[in-house]
């Protein structure tokens, strides 16, 4: 169990457990304790199994830490190093505090996932009941295959969990509180910090540049909230402000966005006007202020706010769609422009055409294009379900044909002369009639279609469950071949015994039940056949193995 590659995060010596001295190890995935003088862990808990940790109150003589597991068991460690017991305990506690949530989340997620799968898929749920609850196979075995299967079939779903967007108001959620002595307190959560980083990559860059070499995390955020960057309506920037560069970068980004222009020609205000008046003509009701100096500070701070809101919204929007868009972006990149206006000219029409077409569309004036469908209106749905047997590929006879043939038969019948020398004997005739009546030998084909009527529904349901369960087990069984690892070997043996157990506990009672109800026994024939095939495969494999061994 104790693989050497495991990363040891913390080692605490002189930790007693059950009155025994030893060493406590905190590793990447588990916490373990080994008694002094031995090289084996006697206690080992995966973090995922731990529900919570408890510590002894500060004033107590014994400094202890208790781990409570999901199963309800608990383990208590006593920190016995006189000089540093408290420190040791606190270090352990801190580390555990960081580690446990991660695993808890994972464990919960898995549980949730399992729960969800069972809820969404009744067949699976039934299978779970059949196999796990009745203890044919263990839950772990059941899920090992299931979850893995899902992971394998479409990894995209699992890896690409849905990206959560950013709330537009995340900055508003940081409510400053006065702390009573001329100061402000900002409460930051990990979510908010992530939102800030995702929306303003420049801040993230600053963060990684400065923290922790130059500033502590706390200092960094203090500066952030003090900076004009956060209070964008302040115009004057201090030069020592580390965020002034961010502002400049933002400005640049905004500018480049503006220069890039818009893709949709219908919202491009620049090319909206066809012919602007020449300079000097026209009535200017709002005089364009030629001198910027005349603008008061208040005005420019107002326009700074407006700019800020536009930028903020654009960034939030971009952060939300950044991940998903990258592939498409690249695709469009190649097709669209590299800033060259002439290039874009060639590629513009398609977008423009589509937009124009959309704009002149009157959907309600057009007759709907798709062919009119008539809603299916069934009076007796079962008649629809097992309706008349479909006609095989035979010629359809027109009514004329039918009339002709009727006439022909009538004509034949009129001229019919019994050839009495070649008639059947009466016994042969009666047996033929018996064979041709319902239930007779020749009418067997017709009986097949009636199986769902012959067998009561609950039996059918049971049979279906059996099939599903057997299929599942067999799938496990067959997936072991070719058996090339000891693990698989072990598994195949287990699966074989599982199959046998299934046959004994599930299949046989069912067969007996059918027999009691006098139903035709070949209902389970196919199931048995499948099991037999598996057994024979197993035997072949086993004999071969024996031969190889000897």
């Amino acid at each position, binding site marked *: 169990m104790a693989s050497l590659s495991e990363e040891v995060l913390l080692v605490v010596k002189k930790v007693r457990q059950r009155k025994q001295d030893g060493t406590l190890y905190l590793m990447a995935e588990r916490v373990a304790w080994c008694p002094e003088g031995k090289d084996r862990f006697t206690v080992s808990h995966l973090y995922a199994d731990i529900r919570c940790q408890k510590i002894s109150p500060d004033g107590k003589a014994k400094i202890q830490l208790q781990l409570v597991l999901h199963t309800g068991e608990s383990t208590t460690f006593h920190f016995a190093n006189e000089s540093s017991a408290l420190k040791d305990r606190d270090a352990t506690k801190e580390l555990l505090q960081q580690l446990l949530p991660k695993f808890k989340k994972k464990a919960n997620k898995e549980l949730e996932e399992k729960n969800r799968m069972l809820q969404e898929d009744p067949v699976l749920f039934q299978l779970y009941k059949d196999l796990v609850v009745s203890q044919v196979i263990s839950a772990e075995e059941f899920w090992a295959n299931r979850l893995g299967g899902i992971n394998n079939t479409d990894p995209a779903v699992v890896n690409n969990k849905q990206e959560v*967007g950013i*709330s*537009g108001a995340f*900055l*508003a959620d940081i409510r400053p509180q006065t702390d009573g002595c001329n100061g402000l307190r900002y409460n930051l959560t990990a979510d908010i910090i992530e939102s800030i980083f995702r929306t303003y990559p420049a801040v993230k860059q600053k963060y990684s540049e400065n923290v922790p070499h130059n500033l502590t995390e706390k200092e960094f955020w203090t500066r952030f909230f003090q900076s004009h960057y956060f209070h964008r*309506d302040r115009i004057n920037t201090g030069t020592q402000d580390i965020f002034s560069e961010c502002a400049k970068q933002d400005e640049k980004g905004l500018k480049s*966005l*503006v*220069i890039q*222009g*818009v893709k*949709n020609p*219908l*919202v*491009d*205000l*620049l*090319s*909206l*006007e*066809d*012919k*602007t*008046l*020449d*300079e*000097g*003509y*026209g*009535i*200017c*009701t*709002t*005089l364009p*202020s030629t*001198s910027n100096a*005349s603008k008061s500070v208040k005005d420019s701070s*107002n*326009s700074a706010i*407006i*700019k800020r*809101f*536009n930028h903020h*919204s*654009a960034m939030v*929007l971009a952060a939300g*769609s950044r991940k998903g868009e990258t592939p498409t972006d690249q695709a469009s990149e190649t097709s669209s422009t590299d800033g060259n206006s*002439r290039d874009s000219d060639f590629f513009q029409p398609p977008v*423009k*055409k589509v937009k*124009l077409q959309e*704009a*002149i569309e*009157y*959907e*309600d*004036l*057009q*007759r*709907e294009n798709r062919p009119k469908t008539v809603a299916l209106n069934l009076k007796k749905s079962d008649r629809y379900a097992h309706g008349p047997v479909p006609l095989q590929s035979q010629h359809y006879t027109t009514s004329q044909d039918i009339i002709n043939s009727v006439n022909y038969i009538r004509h034949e019948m009129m001229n019919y002369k019994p050839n009495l020398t070649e008639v059947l004997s009466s016994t042969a005739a009666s047996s033929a009639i018996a064979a041709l009546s319902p239930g007779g030998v020749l009418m067997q084909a017709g009986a097949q279609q009636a199986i769902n009527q012959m067998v009561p529904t609950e039996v059918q349901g049971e049979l279906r469950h059996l099939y599903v369960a057997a299929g599942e087990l067999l799938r496990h069984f067959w997936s072991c071949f070719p058996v090339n690892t000891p693990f698989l070997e072990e598994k195949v043996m287990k699966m074989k015994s599982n199959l046998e157990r299934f046959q004994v506990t599930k299949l046989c009672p069912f067969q007996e039940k059918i027999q009691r109800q006098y139903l035709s026994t070949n209902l389970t024939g196919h199931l048995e056949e499948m099991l037999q095939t598996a057994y024979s495969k197993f035997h072949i494999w086993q004999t071969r193995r024996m031969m190889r061994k000897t």
Partner: protein
Amino acid sequence: MKLNIEGLLVYFPYDYIYPEQYSYMLELKRTLDAKGHGVLEMPSGTGKTISLLSLIVAYQRVFPLDVTKLIYCSRTVPEIEKVVEELRKLMEFYAKETGERNNFLALALSSRKNLCIHPEVSSLRFGKEVDGKCHSLTASYIRAQRHINPNQPVCRFYEEFDAVGRQVPLPAGIYNLDDLKDFGRRKGWCPYYLARYAILHANIVVYSYHYLLDPKIADLVSKELAKKSVVVFDEAHNIDNVCIDSMSVNITRRTLDRCQNNVDTLQNTIQKIKETDAAKLREEYRRLVEGLKEANVARETDVYLSNPVLPDEILKEAVPGTIRTAEHFVGFLRRFLEYLKSRLRVHHVVQESAPQFLKDIFDKVCIDRKPLRFCAERLHSLLRTLEIADIADFSAVTLISNFATLVSTYSQGFTIIIEPFEDRTPTIANPVLHFSCMDPSIAIKPVFQRFQSVIITSGTLSPLDIYPRILDFRPVTMASFTMTLARTCLCPLIVGRGNDQVALSSKFETREDFAVIRNYGNLLLEMSAVVPDGIVAFFTSYVYMENIVASWYEQGILENIQRNKLIFIETQDAAETSMALEKYQEACENGRGAILLSVARGKVSEGIDFVHHFGRAVIMFGVPYVYTQSRILKARLEYLRDQFQIRENDFLTFDAMRHAAQCVGRAIRGKTDYGLMIFADKRYARADKRGKLPRWIQEHINDGSLNLTVDETVQLSKHFLRQMAQPFRQEDQLGLSLLTLEQLESEEMLQKITQIAHQT
């Protein structure tokens, strides 16, 4: 479907039709029959354009001699392109139904910036640069120089077009701007000049207002368009301002300085030419003696659209002797310039009429009225003679000479205001001479006179009767159509009070009131929680918006709004606003929802549609009155009162309400669309304001929703939105607001349709 509009077979490229479209076509047909002008109001989103096109194209086919051309004027480039696309759809339908390709030629015309395919020139960003550069490659004298000096760069596309393009007419078809460029690229011809040439024989021309209304451009482009044309001004609710703008001139000190430079350049050039090529100047002199006969003959024989800058009288005369030689003219310009400079040195505001100005100029520098009138024409001739390539450089002197001609031609309809400083900054000297046109009818008069039918149409033209008055024409039909609706998909609400009963208003006295600002903020906040996807809010002016945004920011209202939706704000920079708009649409598209804060009369309110989820609610904060303290506006109001008997208040309210209607109308672009229209000002409840809203909005304001509080508004909105979110299918509309051909032809429906048109 094929319709019978009073005996005219109209192909309509859809399977269904709105009743109001039918009604609209009826009115339009009557207007064309009477060969008169018409004013038609129909809500946006009811297929105005396609109705217009279907009927006029049908008319052109049946009566090819009565209506030879359709000139369709729209306001923005996307609008122009949309019209052409609709036309394409119609023509495809014709081809499908009749089985033959008709030989219609229809094309869009736009400025060089949108049509140029010259690799260097088209890469320039601004329209003016493109024009200037194009001119420097294609001017006649540059091309003449090339014969001597083959290294002189010219535009190969223009050369090719000039050599071949004029002989071969543009093949029939529908040409949008991009199609023209494609065609140009294939043939190697300049699409711009090709289009300008082709509009003369095209059946349908789609271009911007300015090509007809701005005398400087109309003279170049539209002069020779056939008299038997039908002119349509779409989105014409602002047409009077376009007219006025095109005739008004502002002169600053900078203009005069540049003009001074221009005059110096002219002087030098004349000196040079005199030494090398005196014959050229003599030739010009001779031509001027002959007079402007040529133009006069053309106009009398009805070939030309008259130019309001070039009034009829002066065409009959020759250029007066005092400015006939080039040196004399330059001297004359100098004197005029000095005079203007002296006028700009005033220290108080001066307002005077054109005759007063003329008298003053005669007294001070002895410049007569007559030479002034010929100033523009004389300069034009001189620039031609001197072979000046880059006209753009001479814009200042052209401006001054245009001003001279205008001020001496029109004794009425214009006013001169000289302001030594801006009102807000009385300490900084920045003198401006405003020569402002107050009478929009001057610019549009030639259009009404020349073309047999002029249709003025828009979604918001109420009250209808004011347009004929201020544009001074006599329409044969005036009608306002409502929108027939199977469900009331618009919900106009007037919010008069905050939850604390404070009256909401943007009027001057309460504009700075914190209670009002806070309540406006609350309204937006509450709506942002209720309305899905996009909300557009309009403020009365940019300054007002800035102030409100700032105080919302201080009060933390914006932060709370951000919890619900992202916020985007229009800025004064068009490129920035475009980006904000695109992001806004993106946010609506991906489900996050957004709010756009914008300004009435701004570019967004005039040119951008907010269809479906891009605008589920429009909030109009305040009544968008124009800035009333401006002297130009005051002069115009006075003029309107004296000349047209329109009271100041009536006009101001009319102007405010048409802009408000434009803003709120942005959200409804069709019958399947739906949206809230929230008027957040108690003044909207008054009859004089409400009565000036378009009928299709007015109808849906009920007495219960005249003075709501914010809470009540939220309740009503919730209810409305919940109803509207139900699925809405074609069958729900059929027979009510959407008709098949059979339904349309039923007696009962025809009866109903006659009521849709609201005659005034």
